[in-house]
């Protein structure tokens, strides 16, 4: 109980739980859409999803400042690639939050004559860019880990053993691919934080890809990916060891 209280007392913890619920509702609505007996339940789920989304928009009102502060911090990183990727990601997130705040003001009626569709597309674009930069950072970190491992003598011995164990035809033809995959999987296994962050960003990517029309999936896929990424977000918040730093 104490851990639950501590988790929910963080604003981010609550937001991630609400996000998980929102995408779970979206997924359930998609799965039940053709079920005529559950129309009442589908209506309730839709109402819940709308409420959660509206509430989350209100709670996100102060997050622009958070992102700008994060961008200021990442500008001071020593590694140039990390510095570039993270600062760009944070700045895009700040722009996304600004668009989101404008959309909130529109939805409560504070601002009337703005093009809701245009602002919504802009916010999706900013979110998409921030995810792309986060993924670029993940790829960079994974490549760094792989080169580090490849240089390690013990690891090379282990890899030789693994490759010589299974002399199937396909693997013999493409030894480099096999070695590469083995190196990749070993690096990811030894650093679960990177693996989780990469998976989270890939899942998150489907949401703006669908919204912008670049890769149209359906509401079910979006709901499922959103749910997975929210659950990973909750896990990384509950277990700070699994959080990728910086």
């Amino acid at each position, binding site marked *: *109980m*104490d851990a*639950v*209280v501590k988790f*929910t*007392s*963080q*604003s*981010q*913890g*609550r937001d991630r739980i*609400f996000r998980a619920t929102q995408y779970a509702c979206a997924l359930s609505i998609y799965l039940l859409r053709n079920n005529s007996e559950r129309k009442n339940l589908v*209506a*309730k789920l839709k*109402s*819940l999803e709308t*409420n*959660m989304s*509206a*509430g989350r928009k*209100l*709670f996100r009102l*102060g*997050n622009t*400042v*958070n992102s*700008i*502060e994060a961008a200021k911090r990442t500008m001071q990183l020593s590694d140039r690639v990390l510095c570039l990727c993270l600062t760009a990601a944070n700045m895009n997130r700040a722009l996304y939050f600004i668009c989101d705040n404008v959309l909130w003001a529109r939805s*409560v*009626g*504070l601002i009337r004559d703005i093009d809701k569709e245009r602002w919504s597309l802009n916010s999706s674009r900013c979110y998409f860019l921030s995810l792309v930069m986060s993924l670029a950072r993940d790829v960079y970190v994974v490549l760094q880990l792989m080169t580090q491992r490849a240089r390690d003598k013990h690891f090379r011995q282990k890899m030789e053993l693994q490759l010589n164990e299974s002399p199937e035809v396909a693997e013999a033809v493409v030894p480099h691919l096999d070695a590469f995959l083995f190196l990749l999987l070993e690096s990811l296994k030894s650093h679960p934080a990177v693996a989780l962050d990469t998976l989270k960003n890939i899942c998150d990517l489907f949401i703006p890809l669908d919204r912008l029309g670049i890769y149209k999936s359906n509401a079910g896929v979006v709901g499922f990916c959103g749910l997975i990424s929210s659950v990973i977000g909750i896990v990384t918040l509950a277990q700070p060891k699994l959080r990728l730093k910086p």
Partner: protein
Amino acid sequence: MDSWVRFNAQSQAKERVIRAAQYACTLLGYTLQKGGAAAELRKTVSQLEAHMSLSRKLLRLGNSVEALEAAKRAIHLSDSVLRLCLTIGHLNRAMYFACDNVLWAGKTGLVSKLDQHKWSQRSFRYYLFALILNLTRDVYELRLLIECEARYRAARSPPSPSPTLPTDHLLSPSTPDMLAWLRRQLHLLVTVLYSNPPLLLDLLKNSCDIFIPLDRLGIYPTGQGFVGACGLASSVLSILTMVHPWLKLKP
């Protein structure tokens, strides 16, 4: 900027800011009505207030657990009056949050056919009990501090042959004696409150807060404007205690 980020990271802080905005909207709605503003503007303000109220209910979904945990901690206090007041106060708060959660479920349509008025009244009753217990605790602490201060003053100053000795006072209570005594008590009160800002803030906050359930339950109706002003004042005081943790009354 950094302090804002830290402040914003607490879920309770966010809820307080939204509460301040909500009661500011209430106050604004009342002023606009009195000033005869356009119906469109008043509608926007009341819609904004309703949206904030519902979102705060969403944000408070887990607070019953926190209140129960606080009640569990309060049981171990040494002072019996404090123990009683705080434990029952926290339990009432937990019940208030539980009713609030039911109201949220009703408003979002999860629970159909909910008697919202009944549950709303119920939740305000629990809130009123919790506030009364908090005020009792404040008055108790104040009385202890005043007694302490009076004893300290009596010990510090030599006994003077003034006409305000307790026995004389009881035998022949005259108006100037009464006034002098009253003035002395008031001076003690002001000194104690001035030197204990956490107690003063908590007392002010609870006093402002109590007008809200009193109005909503119809016990002492004061009107939207007064309720809005009280709500806004208590939210601002609450935000102050969060920004400066030393201003929070402990336990």
